[in-house]
């Protein structure tokens, strides 16, 4: 593993932004701030994709994740009026346990990948991540998974609509829950 000061500057800056905004997603009290920080994370990951010669993935990442999914999250936050909700104060023990568990995963994965640092980036191959090549591969080799993902989307849409439909007796359910909690 080479010294960290030898790394290219774009990679360093982008990684810094990515990790800092990801940390802010996790630690921020306000869910709206979390969503905005996650959008920043997705933007920097898209920049990583461009540096990795995956131009189509970069654009799709921006449109699907930062554009569609995050707007969905924001809509749900505003629909439920959760932006001012403060989470209950958790005990420090919980935080310590979570940090230890996540830190153990980090240490284990890092140690497992310790021997892999030989490969250096080969000469960049032209046009792998462009629509021309990806579309050809998608329509020949990956045709069946592509069609299956369409079925998955239809079932997800039907499921979301069914779940989101307002039931007639939802007030009774709330009453039942209140009775149970009392």
């Amino acid at each position, binding site marked *: 593993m080479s010294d960290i000061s030898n790394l290219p500057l774009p990679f360093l800056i982008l990684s810094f932004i990515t990790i800092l905004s990801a940390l802010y997603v996790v630690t921020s009290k306000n869910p709206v701030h979390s969503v905005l920080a996650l959008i920043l994370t997705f933007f920097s990951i898209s920049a990583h994709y461009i540096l990795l010669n995956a131009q189509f993935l970069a654009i799709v990442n921006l449109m699907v994740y930062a554009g569609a999914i995050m707007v969905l999250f924001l809509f749900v936050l505003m629909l439920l009026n959760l932006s001012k909700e403060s989470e209950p104060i958790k005990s420090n023990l919980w935080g310590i346990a979570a940090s230890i568990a996540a830190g153990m995963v980090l240490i284990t994965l890092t140690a497992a990948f310790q021997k892999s640092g030989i490969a250096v980036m080969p000469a960049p191959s032209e046009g792998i991540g462009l629509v021309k090549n990806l579309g050809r591969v998608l329509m020949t*080799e990956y045709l069946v998974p592509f069609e299956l*993902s369409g079925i998955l989307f239809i079932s997800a849409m039907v499921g979301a609509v069914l779940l989101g439909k307002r039931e007639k007796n939802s007030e009774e359910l709330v009453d039942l829950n209140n009775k149970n909690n009392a």
Partner: protein
Amino acid sequence: MLNVFHNLEISHYIYLSTVLFSIGLFGVLFRRNAIVLLMCIELMLNSVNLLLAAFTEYMGDANANGQMFVFFIMVVAAAEAAVGLAILVMVYRNTRKTDVSFLDQLKD
């Protein structure tokens, strides 16, 4: 553009996505708000996507199989977010909370 990357090893991308994955895992374990939990899952999925794209570039694979995997992971993540948020809205409608620690009715 890519000449700046002659001394960038694959291990740096591995470390970056490992750190991102661990941050997402920490969020899943630490936070109680179900929306933030879903966002942390998205973060973990994105770290895996980044690693797959990096491996595709380092392998020089002309078919870009890794990028295809990223594509399908994005499809599954979009469907998962839609269904998860629908479930979340229903849970909120029934309990007026999105705190996952209150969803313990199966316990008794």
